[in-house]
């Protein structure tokens, strides 16, 4: 078990390094000259060359890549933003908690609402509860998130004037981004849960549980759900990683100063150090979350855990004999 975790962590390091090289290469070849953006359209050729030299982007590709990798992974220095003149690391440190909180709350809301909806739909298969959940899911999965977000702004901020449409400061700023981001997620999780539960609703061991005299509510929550929810859990885990990287649109619409907005502004202004920093951090988060999801399988599904346990006891026995 420990060996597996270490192996995966080692792989995670390689994933991050690969992501770093990839984003560096992509940004190198993308058209657009940061020097021109910094100095504006009236800059002279000499000034441009000067700025390029300062930024170090006049050096050959491999030299730039080498110094970037050296600074990032040996000195742990992600550099300074070319526009804000603040450290990228500091900027990330300030924004990550906000984005993380946003993603976390939206996943919690999605699961707390979506999973019971899906279970309810499956246990009332083909009745009105089921049809209601399906229609809800269909509507909010088909409608683009940003459009829902704009409608929410019009309704809650402009008409009712009860929730702020941008910025950060109070808990109210979190409500609309979470709500508009979670609706599609709720639909998705509800649909997914429904189909997973439907698979076990008619399983023989459910009849066995009823024959034992288990109460109907317990049949659902103790016999059906633990078996049905394993794939749902993976889905929640992966959608969490999507949240960390994928709130760019939400943060842009609500001017929410998180990692997503940081990244999208940096892309617009060719702020290479910020772009690289954001991508590396998002890649690291994703890799570690996936590792956690994989590890959680063992605790959710005893069949997987049993494999680990058996292996370790076998090894222990062999040692004892020797």
């Amino acid at each position, binding site marked *: 078990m420990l060996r597996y975790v270490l192996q995966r962590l080692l792989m995670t390091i390689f994933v991050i390094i690969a992501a770093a090289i990839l984003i560096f290469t992509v940004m190198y070849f993308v058209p657009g000259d940061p020097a021109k953006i910094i100095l504006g359209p009236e800059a002279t050729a000499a000034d441009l060359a000067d700025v390029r030299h300062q930024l170090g982007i006049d050096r050959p590709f491999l030299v730039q890549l080498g110094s970037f990798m050296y600074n990032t992974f040996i000195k742990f220095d992600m550099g300074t933003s070319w526009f804000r003149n603040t450290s990228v690391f500091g900027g990330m440190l300030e924004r990550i908690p906000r984005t993380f909180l946003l993603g976390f709350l939206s996943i919690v809301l999605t699961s707390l609402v979506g999973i019971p909806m899906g279970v309810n739909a499956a246990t009332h298969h083909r009745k009105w509860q089921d049809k209601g959940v399906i229609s809800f899911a269909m509507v909010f999965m088909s409608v683009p998130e940003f459009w829902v977000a704009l409608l929410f702004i019009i309704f809650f901020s402009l008409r009712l004037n009860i929730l702020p449409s941008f910025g950060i400061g109070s808990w109210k700023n979190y409500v609309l981004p979470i709500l508009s981001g979670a609706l599609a997620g709720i639909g998705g999780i509800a649909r997914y849960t429904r189909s997973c539960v439907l698979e076990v609703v008619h*399983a*023989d*061991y459910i*009849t*066995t*549980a*009823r*024959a*034992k*005299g*288990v*109460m109907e509510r317990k049949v659902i929550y103790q*016999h059906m759900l*633990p*078996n049905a929810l394993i794939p749902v859990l993976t889905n929640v885990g992966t959608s969490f990683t999507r949240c960390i990287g994928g709130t760019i649109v939400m943060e842009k619409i609500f001017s929410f100063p998180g990692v997503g907005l940081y990244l999208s502004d940096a892309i617009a202004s060719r702020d290479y150090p910020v772009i690289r920093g954001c991508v590396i951090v998002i890649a690291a988060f994703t890799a570690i979350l996936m590792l956690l999801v994989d590890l959680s399988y063992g605790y959710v*599904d*005893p*069949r997987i855990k*049993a494999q680990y346990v058996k292996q370790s006891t076998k090894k222990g026995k062999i040692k004892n004999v020797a």
Partner: protein
Amino acid sequence: MSAVIETKNLKKYFSVPGGVLHAVDDVSISIERGKTIGVVGESGCGKSTLGLCLVHLHESTDGQIFLNGEDVTDLNKRQLRKFREKAQIVFQDPYSSLNPRMTVDEIIREPLILSRRYKKGELDDRVDELMELTGIEERLAQSYPHELDGGCRQRIGIARALSLDPEFIVCDEPVSALDVSIQAQILNLLMDIQEKSSLTLMFVTHDLSVVRHISNSICVMYLGQVVEMSPTEELFLNQLHPYTKALMSAVPSIDIHNPSQRVMLSGELTSPINPKPGCRFKDRCVYATTACEEPQTLEEITPGHLCLCSRVNEINQLV
């Protein structure tokens, strides 16, 4: 002798597209304490449905069920819970009928906890006792069902069914998913347990040699109806209903000098959806006449031997 379980005109109909499916139609049987009744018939004749109705896993449409003379046809939640302690079922498929997330110990323990009959310390003893009784090795207690073979899984199913000392167990083809050597082990296990605790069994199967081995009497079903009922040996010597004759002749004989005379059936199985009154077997029966269009009644032909055929006397030259 008093009957442990008894049904009177039990019916189970299902609404399906195209009409009403008569899965169990007018079945009246009674089983005495410590006896085994074998229910045989081809696939889809309603024998499993009958078993499921008897233990309230299906709610019957009409008719009555008695347990120890007490009417248990309609039960509320609490009564149903008490009923489950007395009437249990062993399922056909030992692979899918055990929750893959529960260990052997947990599967057997759950009904004990639910009954609240045992104290904490007694639970472990009772689980051990059940595992010993059903021949599950103690070291397997913390295993999950998928790690075990079919025979062992069916032993778990039996241990679970026995856990609260039921009086009556429906065995719904408990050995059809197992290979022959393990079939014998499981059958002998059931018979041993029956001997020890005077358990009453209903044995649903389509395997005639199994029924002969285990049951005291046999009930032959065809399209939801009981067509013949008799003590086991009597039925193997002397079949009255044309369907039973055909069924029995289908058992392969190992005597090459005296091969059994096959009664071949022609025609298709009549649909169990909206069946016409009258004999349901008449379309495939070589003896069928217009008399078979009339509704049939189950009559006692010789003592203890019942048959649902208005022409039984002519067919068997009994008069």
